[in-house]
């Protein structure tokens, strides 16, 4: 059944965010994405780290300003130690 455009966008957004944080902020691929752990979502923690580095509002959410930075052409070296 066709995916609703918004849901499709969300999928793409999540894909962009995950790929960016894995490339530059050492986000580990989550082997058990279906399991929920009590601690903060690693992706949220890494997103906050990236937002802090770029002087963005630290929301932990992929807001517009954050996505705009993630889409900018950049150096392939990570921003944090791998």
């Amino acid at each position, binding site marked *: 059944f066709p995916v609703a455009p918004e849901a499709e966008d969300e999928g793409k957004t999540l894909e962009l965010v995950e790929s960016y944080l894995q*490339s*530059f902020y050492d986000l580990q691929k989550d082997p058990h994405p279906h399991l929920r752990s009590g601690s903060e979502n690693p992706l949220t923690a890494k997103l906050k780290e990236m937002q802090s*580095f*770029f*002087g963005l509002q630290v929301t932990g959410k992929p807001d517009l300003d954050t996505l705009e*930075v993630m889409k*900018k*052409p*950049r*150096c*392939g*070296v990570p*921003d944090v*130690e791998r």
Partner: protein
Amino acid sequence: YVFTPGNPKWKRNDLTYRILNYTPKMRRADVDEAVRKALSVWSNVTPLTFQKVQDKEADIMISFAYRDHRDNSPFDGPNGQLAHAFQPGEGIGGDVHLDEEEAWTKGERGYNLFIVLAHELGHSLGLSHSNDPGALMYPTYSYTDPNEFLLPQDDIDGIQAIYGQSNAAVQPTGPITPEACDPNLTFDSITTLRGEMFFFKGRYMLRKHPGRTETELSFISLFWPRLPSGIQAAYENVETDEILIFKEDKYWVVRGYDVLPGYPKPIYRLGFPKTVKRVNAAYNDETTGKTYFFVADRYWRYDEKEKSMDRGYPRKIVSDFGNIGRVDAAFQKDGYVYFFHGTTQFQFDPRAKRIVRRMKSTSWFNC
């Protein structure tokens, strides 16, 4: 600035480099020049030297590569990741890889090879990414005219902390990234633009949207790559939806993101005498359609409809605007004119013909 974790550095100052291959998108000579210039960015501020070698292993091997090129860091095609480099060390250490699928150029189109190389060489020498938005070692690409490029102070401090100062008698210094609430902040020029305010400083602009509290810092080149840094005067002609930009004896006309063709033109086309070499500040009075140009201690008045300077000018600034001294920048908003002189700002009421308030230069930034 940030050191690469573990503080790796080259144990020698006399390093070698080699260009392993060339992109077909640029002339070989332009690639050589971009590499040479990028290396000099770092050798100019440290004791480091770089010697080009052929047909043997060099400390820094520079190459263009495609997608997976066997270093666990595959490239991702056009845009995205442009290049990467390895920290100082044997073998792959110090090497620079450039994504061959990028549009490499020596100008403002595509990605300027010199700018990207200079950044990557920072990694080759032991620097990591800086979170200073004006630093060369900031992770995202931003174009600067290579002829105007100056290594920012943040990067100079970083590389000299690793390798020491340059052997030059006079230590080089670099531009500092402006901060909106710096009490000592002064401006090169200011203009309104479609309800927003643009404060120009060096190669930067601080953009203030009346509806938002925060101030956005970006490079002038982000919007207008063809404009110079160090804009000396600017004003908005609301009637034509254009801003006019002045530097030295030239001016540009900008509409939206576009610098109109045929510019820059000499300021003398506007009617300035040849004795005028630059314009310090300008503002347009939307109600009268007159533009005021401030040069040293005098000012001219230009009729935008007649497209000529009014008679009887120049006049002395002090005689019509009071003791505001030399004007660095000016703009009109809501019927008042705001004059900037150093860190002081004067609010002038053209109806009452007097200064009605005195503020700090940073008063617009909600500090």
